[in-house]
């Protein structure tokens, strides 16, 4: 049997299965368990990456029917370009996170056993791989549930804390509501594929071949979009995300935020472009609008946070929004048969999917390193960490620059491509879209500028300045494995940012398969150094030249200015002649975001209280002030609180039937049987 992508994928699953098998044996020796878990998961992820890269570039499609599942309903597995691309997205970050986990999990040694964490991580990874390989609705949903359930247990890992249990429960509910919606969508497509006779329609092949009537197609799309949105954290279905991601162990948060959300993106692309295939333009507009709302609301909520991991979780909402913007534009262009532009927009969206996985993984790993060293998630207690953790600081900074869409890192390239897709929208034949779509570009610009502001805050408050917290414990840099994991992710961010043409060339066949257009010839028409998405006269960007150019000037200036031996005097901080400057005089995360909180305040529900303690003799001379600020998600109050209230109301009503008296329950049973007898005569 010769080496093929499919064989590599099989190896990947076998490695995970092997890990699950040896876990009971290694339970007693936690150190070996952590090592075996990290090593096997890394190998498994790398095998998947290799398979994915190979499949996307060669286009070889492999499919297999597993003799598993229910009688007459075997599992279908298919490895095509789209699955291959997502295997790369999932595998690449997972392999970095596995290296990182080696050090991170050692932090739990002696505190609590990590057996469940390793086992569920392996199941989680396997579930994600299986989701993108599934070729029928049955195994897709099995894999989807496997992924959801194992991540539920991962969120619940530190279950002694009430907020973790609450977050995990909320996550479980939203995940299942989403899963029901996806199930219904597949039901519609599978049912129509066989005219509601027999079960043969559950295979994706049958759905592909069926042209759905417009009304049913729309129903299927809306159900699928709603279901996948719940997983991806699209506003307004995002509330579970900032609850669940921060409380999970940081290596799990990195995987959940970095790659689990991407399986939902995969689902949307698979259903829309592959299974349904033919759609009206307003589907794209719908995706675009939800993308824009998620992007802007995500970043605005992120700005209001002072919990580092919660802030990052809200940024996932933002970035999922940006990805959906690309996909929405691609759908609009496809529906007008503009395949070239559709390919551009789709590549922008998918490229951002890959980029977001890398930089969000990196940032969560960085946040985990900070948590590991300081045991603190609240940014208001941090500050000055760059002096204790120089490596973590520099690598976290690379992530900040990437996510803020600044050159030369990767986040910029995909957002730049999205802007180009926006700028080409005037060629659409619909005047309404011509006028409205550019406003979307402005919202995207607002989003990326706000993201930059947010990450100046996140990095500045966490790593710069001096320590704000009361507990001045000893902080030291994290160990080599955590640094290596972060370093590899940071290098990939830089690599993808400097060499975008190579990645786009690699991804191009995928776009051609889905959107029917190819931009490889024009995108790298001037060699690998120049990225020219449509034509050189239209727009061009050369990351290598910009990067090396600025670097050269920086080095030359540094050398020239240091030719003269000029001294640097280190002196204490200038305090303007007053008494000593204290650490508490620094800007905090809350004060940094204050101008933006005031400008966009109407989008949040803000409660601000100032108390004078004790009541001052004169208002001009307060003795102590107590400032309390609470910023809440409006969507929670608008959308979720009513549902929560209604379900409590309903359960209280139903609860009245429960008296705890056996006679009453017997009467219930008797009445039920009577009713059934009457109706089923």
């Amino acid at each position, binding site marked *: 049997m010769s080496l093929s992508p499919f064989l590599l994928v099989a190896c990947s699953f076998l490695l995970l299965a092997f890990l699950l098998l040896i876990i009971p044996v290694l339970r007693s020796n936690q150190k070996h368990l952590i090592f075996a878990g990290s090593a096997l998961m890394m190998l498994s992820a790398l095998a998947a990456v290799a398979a994915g890269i190979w499949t996307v570039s060669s286009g070889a499609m492999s499919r297999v029917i597993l003799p598993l599942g229910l009688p007459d309903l075997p599992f279908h597995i298919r490895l095509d370009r789209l699955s291959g691309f997502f295997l790369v997205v999932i595998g690449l970050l997972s392999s970095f996170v596995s290296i990182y986990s080696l050090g991170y999990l050692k932090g739990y040694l002696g505190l609590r056993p990590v057996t469940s964490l390793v086992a569920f991580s392996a199941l989680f990874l396997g579930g994600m791989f299986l989701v993108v390989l599934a070729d029928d609705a049955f195994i897709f949903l099995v894999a989807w549930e496997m992924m959801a359930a194992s991540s539920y247990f991962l969120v619940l890992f530190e279950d002694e804390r009430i907020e973790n249990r609450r977050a995990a429960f909320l996550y479980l509910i939203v995940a299942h509501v989403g899963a029901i919606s996806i199930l219904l969508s597949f039901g519609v497509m599978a049912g129509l594929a066989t005219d509601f006779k027999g079960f043969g329609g559950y295979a994706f092949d049958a759905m592909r071949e069926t042209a759905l009537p417009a009304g049913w197609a729309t129903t299927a799309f809306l159900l699928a979009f709603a279901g996948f949105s719940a997983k991806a954290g699209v506003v307004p279905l995002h509330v579970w995300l900032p609850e669940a991601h921060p409380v999970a162990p940081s290596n799990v948060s990195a995987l959940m935020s970095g790659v689990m959300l991407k399986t939902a993106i995969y689902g949307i692309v698979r259903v829309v472009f592959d299974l349904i295939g033919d759609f009206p333009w307003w589907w794209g507009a719908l995706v675009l609008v939800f993308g824009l709302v998620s992007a802007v609301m995500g970043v605005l909520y992120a700005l209001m946070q002072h919990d580092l991991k919660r802030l990052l979780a809200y940024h996932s909402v933002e970035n999922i929004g940006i990805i959906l913007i690309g996909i929405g534009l691609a759908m609009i262009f496809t529906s007008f048969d503009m395949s070239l532009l559709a390919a551009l927009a789709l590549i922008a969206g998918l490229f951002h999917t890959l980029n977001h996985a890398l930089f969000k993984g990196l940032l969560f790993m960085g946040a985990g390193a900070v948590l590991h060293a300081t045991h603190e998630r609240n940014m208001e207690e941090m*500050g*000055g960490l*760059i002096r204790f953790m120089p490596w973590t600081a520099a690598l976290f900074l690379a992530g900040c*620059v990437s996510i*803020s869409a*600044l*050159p030369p890192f990767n986040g910029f390239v995909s957002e*730049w491509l999205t802007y180009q897709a926006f*700028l080409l929208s*005037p060629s659409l034949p619909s*005047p309404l879209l011509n*006028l409205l779509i*550019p406003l979307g*570009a*402005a919202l995207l*610009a*607002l989003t990326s*500028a706000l993201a*930059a*502001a947010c*990450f*100046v805050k996140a*990095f*500045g408050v966490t790593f*710069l*300045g*001096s320590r704000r917290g009361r507990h001045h414990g000893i902080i030291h840099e994290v160990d080599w494995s955590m640094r290596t994991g972060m370093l590899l992710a940071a290098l990939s961010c830089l690599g993808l940012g400097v060499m975008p043409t190579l990645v786009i060339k690699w991804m191009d066949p995928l776009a051609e398969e889905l959107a029917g257009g190819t931009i490889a010839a024009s995108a790298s028409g001037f060699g690998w150094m*120049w990225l020219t998405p449509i034509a*050189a*006269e*239209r*727009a*061009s*960007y*050369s990351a290598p*030249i*910009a990067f090396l150019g*600025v670097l050269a*000037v*920086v080095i030359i*200036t*540094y050398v020239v*200015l240091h030719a003269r031996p*000029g*001294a*640097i*005097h280190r*002196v*204490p*901080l*200038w305090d303007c002649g007053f008494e000593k*400057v204290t650490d508490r*005089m*620094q*800007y905090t995360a809350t*004060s940094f975001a204050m*101008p*933006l909180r*005031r*400008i966009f305040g109407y989008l949040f529900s803000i409660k601000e209280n100032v108390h004078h303690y004790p009541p001052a003799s004169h208002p001009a001379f307060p003795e102590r002030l107590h400032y309390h600020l609470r910023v809440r998600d409006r969507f929670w109050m608008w959308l979720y609180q009513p549902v929560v209230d209604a379900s409590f109301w309903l359960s209280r009503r139903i609860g009245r039937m429960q008296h705890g008296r056996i006679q009453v329950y017997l009467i219930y049973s008797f009445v039920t049987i009577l009713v059934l007898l009457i109706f089923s005569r």
Partner: protein
Amino acid sequence: MNIHPLIVEITQIAVLLVAAPLFTGWVKMVKCWFQGRTSPSLFQPYRDIRKLLAKDVTLAENASWIFRFTPYLVFGVSIMAGGIIPILSMDLPLSATADVIALVALFAIARFFTALAGMDIGTAFGGMGSSREMTIASLAEPAMLMAVFAVSLVSRSTSLSQMALVVSQGHAMLRPSLVFALLAFILIALAETGRVPVDNPATHLELTMIHEAMILEYSGRHLALIEWASMMKLFLFTTLGIASFFPWGIARNDDLVAVLAAIPVLLFKLGIVGVGLVLIETGLAKMRIFRITEFLGSAFLFATLGMLSFFMLE
């Protein structure tokens, strides 16, 4: 006679380095005339830079490498941007390095690091400056993109050379979309370069400063680089406006005569822009920080009107 494109590129960067302080000096001089004060010499900015370069650096004890790296990065980005914008010629080897969106992002990375440097020392002023600068930048960005959008509709391109070429080839007719885009661009440029009414480059008053608050702790050669870079930023935004809206006189190829002729034309335009800038700065008072929302909101509105008028009228 054609000259090597690299020579044009180097000439252009040299012009940037030399003319940027001169332009700042000119603006200061005209401002003094308008306000009835005796002006410093036109060459005062050069003397300031030379003095700062000769001084030792006084650095706070807790300053990290970010604080020391930022001046070099900001300077490097300015030089790179100077190689991209068609200041003297539209046919530059570097002009394809970045289109106008990528150029704005280059300035954004300089701002990102300046804001970080402001927070590095841990003083209240630094954080205040960073917070305000990033707030204003976030509001300016959508307006900037809409202005770019309106201009790119005319030239069907976001490449700066192409935009300049199309506008300079067109008839000198009044395109409403370009007029609105120009208005928006002026407002944005005032905000981005930190001029009155958004920020006052001459102030060191606690409550009003934005950019100055971030760089308050700098000294010696670091301050020289930052000051020089902010002079270049003003110069670059001016030339960006000239290239997009008034590109006449910029050489279209590497012809020696055309490139040489572009220099006096550039100086002439800069002189006029300087006077215009002074008129705005002396005519307006600095705004309260929360009024800037309206200021940049109107910039956004102008740019959107520019786009709409393109679709409706052109």
